[in-house]
């Protein structure tokens, strides 16, 4: 019988090794697997390369990994935010390696890895510093940049509901990078709000079929509750 559910965040992150490349889902905190990240913080794994759109907000999520000195390099598209003081500081002190990629190229490179492609050509970044050091090809008279696949040893993703086969559905804009990252790592671990019985997810609405997922971890505390307050307060301050 297939049962991908694991009983703790610690067991969920088993076999992750120092120096692994870790894909982490989420646009900011929305759709980030915060309890799996916490488990990494508590582990003795280090020198990780984090592949994630952002680089942590305030002292939450990926910021904690950075503070715990677990991270050697970040590959991302938008590390900066009003509250990104952790990554800002490490960057200024040159204590972290940073590779910044246009967001569409970022996710397309991850998709290429998941889809078994050797790379692709894009117009994005042509004539800019993003093209530096990259192969150029003229296709139908236009200049394109060659981009390579970007694969993880591990993907830590966040979904809404799962079943024991690892089928996943997502919630609203928390979907973002997660379904594609689920295709692009050797070990794919999903943190979810709910685990439902096999057959309860409509086959038409499953976004990530279980074939892509290795482990499912039901979070202890649905973070909607945790973060809702932070975001609502900020929102109400701005819109009052």
């Amino acid at each position, binding site marked *: 019988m297939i049962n991908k559910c694991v009983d703790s965040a610690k067991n969920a992150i088993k076999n992750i090794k120092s120096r692994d490349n870790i894909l982490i889902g989420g646009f*900011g905190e*929305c759709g980030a697997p915060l309890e799996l990240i916490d488990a990494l913080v508590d582990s003795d794994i280090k020198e990780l390369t984090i592949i994630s759109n952002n680089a942590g907000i305030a002292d939450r999520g990926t910021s904690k990994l950075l503070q715990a000195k677990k991270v050697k390099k970040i590959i991302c598209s938008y590390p900066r935010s009003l509250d990104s003081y952790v990554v800002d500081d490490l*960057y200024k002190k040159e204590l972290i390696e940073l590779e910044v990629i*246009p967001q*569409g190229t970022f996710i397309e490179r991850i998709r290429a890895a998941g889809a078994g492609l050797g790379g692709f050509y894009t117009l994005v970044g042509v004539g800019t510093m993003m093209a530096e050091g990259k192969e150029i090809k003229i296709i139908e008279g236009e200049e394109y940049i060659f981009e390579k696949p970007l694969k993880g040893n591990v993907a830590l993703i966040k979904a809404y509901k799962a079943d024991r086969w690892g089928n996943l559905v997502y919630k609203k804009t928390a979907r973002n990078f997660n379904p594609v990252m689920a295709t692009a790592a050797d070990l794919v671990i999903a943190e979810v709000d709910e685990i439902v019985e096999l057959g309860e997810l409509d086959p038409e609405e499953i976004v990530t079929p279980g074939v892509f997922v290795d482990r499912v971890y039901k979070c202890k505390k649905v973070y*909607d509750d945790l973060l*809702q307050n932070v975001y609502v307060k900020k929102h109400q301050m701005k819109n009052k």
Partner: protein
Amino acid sequence: MSNFKPLNKKQIAWRAAQDIADGCVVNLGIGIPTFISDYVNPEIEVIYHTENGMLGMGPAPKRGEEDFYLQNASKELVTIVKGGSYFDSALSFTMMRGGHLDIVFLGAFQVSEEGDIANWSIGEKSMVPSVGGAMDLVVGCSDVRVLMQHCTKDNRSRLIKRCTYPLTAKKVVKKIYTDLAVIDVTPHGLLVKELVEGLSFGELQNLTEAKLILDNNCKILKAPAT
């Protein structure tokens, strides 16, 4: 210098909003463009795209209706309208890069005579570089429009011969709305289509490093008080 009154930021947004046709699918970048949706004709349907994975983005939620799971690309809480949809980042950037959005409205630090745009970095080495979806947005869409102050706070022109800040993309901007003018980027150069009342073309050119061309049919740029 003659007596003219620059538009304020919301008035620039108002002006840009007047050019959106019924049924348009648009993406509003951060900065001045975020105000555009407040001034779109309420009789028409405009679909807002946010690159984190939603079409049909609605206004800010009412008190008590905020939802952490419903955010825009600036990580602000938003809503979804009837007909809206959620999707993953790959499909979101397929929309952008594949030319499926009708208009992209963006802020910019600089725009060149040829429509080059610099809007993601001012090249400060000490600041953590962050590009996000800026480059994807301008490359894929055939109708990229910039909203910005005509000059910087220390009165340097943002419309210049050649961008000095790191480029976002080359030759992509089609139209520019500033506090002083509406300008089309054409194969012949920057064509001034509208000027705020009381400002002469010569005065605008004096404030602008890039070479401007006066449209024969140049109109007065006016916006209601906001």
